[in-house]
């Protein structure tokens, strides 16, 4: 491809990426070193915002909560997504319809989906699930104020919203598994479980890695579900890093954009650390090719 053609094709994309990715990133780093009031130029304060961020235990609490939630939900997404994908992949003519239905939670905006999800658990708005649990066990679960119940509720909602994506990608991966190796496994007498664990899963390792990568990126930035499902997240220890940034930058005690930006930079570093094994894997794969 000639240089001019390359520039014509890549130019618009580079321009858009610079505007939507690099410029905000530059601003975030710049503001993280400033005291910023809305509409006024910032005042350079060095690393003060970072010092302030690390001096408050809320950051560490939010980081631990976010990372734990991310790892757990990603693991559930991989396992449940795989099982669901296998079920869907085995369907005949119904497959496109079932796939279409399964994708509904993925296309609903997160905040809307989370609000609707809450209605299943909030007695004030019906709360069918809570009602059934209470009738069966006699236990009233406080989904929004009990720390662990709320964590489970959040994990379920995020899984509900992201499972279709995981399933869809894994279905695509399953379709690429050659029939020959499945036949060979069958002829060797491999059980169903053994075939999945030793033949299919290794064959779609790259696809599963991709699902894990996207899931980690999405869950680590979780915000919308918390707004709907965890109104007292700060008080019960279920504040995610994104919610913490929002509270600092736009809510608690006015608008501290500098501190919010500093925590944002720290979040970006955390995401890179979490994604490092996957990025290294991709790089290695590219080298071997």
């Amino acid at each position, binding site marked *: 491809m000639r240089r001019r053609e390359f520039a014509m094709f890549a130019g618009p994309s580079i321009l858009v990426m610079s505007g939507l990715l690099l410029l905000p990133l530059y601003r975030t780093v710049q503001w993280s070193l400033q005291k910023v009031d*809305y*509409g006024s130029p910032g005042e350079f304060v060095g690393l003060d915002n970072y010092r302030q961020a690390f001096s408050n235990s809320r950051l560490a609490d939010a980081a631990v909560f976010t990372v734990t939630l991310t790892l757990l939900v990603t693991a559930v997404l991989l396992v449940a997504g795989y099982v*669901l994908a*296998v*079920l*869907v992949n*085995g*369907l*005949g003519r*119904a497959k496109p319809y*079932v796939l279409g*239905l*399964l994708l*509904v*939670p993925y296309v*609903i905006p997160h905040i*809307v*989906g989370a609000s*609707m*999800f809450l*209605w*299943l658990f909030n*007695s*004030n*708005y019906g709360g069918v699930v809570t009602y059934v649990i209470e009738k069966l066990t006699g236990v009233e679960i*406080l*989904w*929004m*104020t009990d720390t662990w119940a709320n964590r489970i509720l959040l994990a379920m909602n995020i899984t*509900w919203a992201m*499972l*279709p994506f995981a399933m869809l990608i894994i279905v695509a991966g399953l379709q690429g598994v050659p029939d020959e190796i499945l036949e060979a496994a069958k002829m060797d007498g491999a059980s169903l479980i053994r075939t999945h664990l030793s033949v299919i899963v290794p064959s779609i390792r790259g696809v599963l890695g991709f699902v894990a990568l996207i899931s980690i990126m999405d869950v680590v930035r979780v915000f919308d579900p918390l707004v709907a499902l965890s*109104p*007292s997240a*700060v*008080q*019960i220890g279920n504040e995610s890093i994104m919610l913490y940034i929002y509270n600092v930058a*736009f*809510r*608690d*005690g*006015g*608008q501290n954009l500098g501190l919010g930006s500093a925590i944002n930079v720290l979040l970006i570093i955390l995401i890179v650390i979490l994604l490092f094994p996957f990025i290294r894997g991709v790089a290695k794969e590219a080298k071997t090719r």
Partner: protein
Amino acid sequence: MSTSRRRTAAAAAVVASLSLVVTGCGAGSKTASKTATQVECDYTAPSGETKVNVLAYNSSSVDPYTNTMVSSCTKGDVTVNHEPIDFGGQVQKTTATLAGDKGTYDIIETYSFVIPQLAADGKLEPLDELVEKYSDEYGLDAINENMSEAMSYDGKLYGLPMQAQMLIMAYREDVFDKLGLEPPTTFEEMRSAAEKIQAETDIEYPIALPLLASADIVTAYDAALGSLGMNLTDPDTMTANLDTPESAKALEALISLKPYMDPQVTTFDQPAVQQQMYNGDAAMSIMFSGRMNDLTLESNSQFAQDMAFAAPPSVDGGDVLYNTVSVDGWSIPANTPLDKEMLFEMIASSVSEKASKASLPAAYPARDGMVTESSMPFAAAANESISKVPPSEPYPWTAEISNAITPIVASVLVGKTPVEEGTQKMQAAAEKILAEYK
């Protein structure tokens, strides 16, 4: 895959997909455009196509004014736009639109609590000259003086009052009559009534208050503190009053109601409290007056006919109630490029006599003499409530301090922070903010 296994897989996949979809059923939406009234809106239109963007949160008491402005002032090449938004969204967008040299909105809904800070920062246009010029045309001399004062800062008017909201107690008259109870006038009486309701009816949590940890909870604390005769700050000495015995008592008073409220009360905003009343899960609630009319609508609740209203109780007896008054109004951002006179005529028309009358009974209009027993089912309660309100605190730091202490108040109420420690933390947070104004 065998046929039976395939069928099992199909059934499992369909069940899984339906379970993912089923929670999506039942969503709905509500618009209030039918609350619009046609009034005179006689501004001089600028040449060319003009869009006027209005920022105002949706509620049954604000909607009539917004909708009237949109429907009456959209004409010719001038379009008045209003997008639905909740109160939290309005708060965020107000900050953003007033931040720079140019904003997104040309008319914004404001309230007495934020006027001092916004006015002190020069974010709003003073309206006095325009009020004087258009007073006769839109009958602005009938607007209540106290409400105008509440929307003023440093002697200048920054928001044209549309309506006031004060705290009102709504209670289930059928339950109270059956048990021989009177509407409580103190927190002590409220606890006694709740105890009796808990003991003698199926209502497990008789009291419903909006105590959302991220917002409403600080309004409740402020109302309790005010009822005990204490302000958040002393502007003469520039000191905070948050570590005083009254401050501790205000927190303890709110904590004392917890056994009678839903255990998840710190997640309840006003719509959630309304829902508790609609469902019959609570027998008494205290909310802003703008939420009261909804309780009387049979389309909302089977208990609508049983709702009765009273002024809220005082915390510890005395004339000052557990109360706060918020005056809502229209302001013109200083950074709008549009003609200020045109914008003023739009807001003046939306609070005109005809428009204000049409807002009844959902709103308590800012015009004198409009609220009567025949125009509003909770008029007596509203009038008594507004006459026994703690003094307002029209200082630029009030909103900032309220924001800063909100998580601390919440932490005390959920029991994570002891009262004494909480008051110390609140005092420190407030003193830090006051230091910037000294």
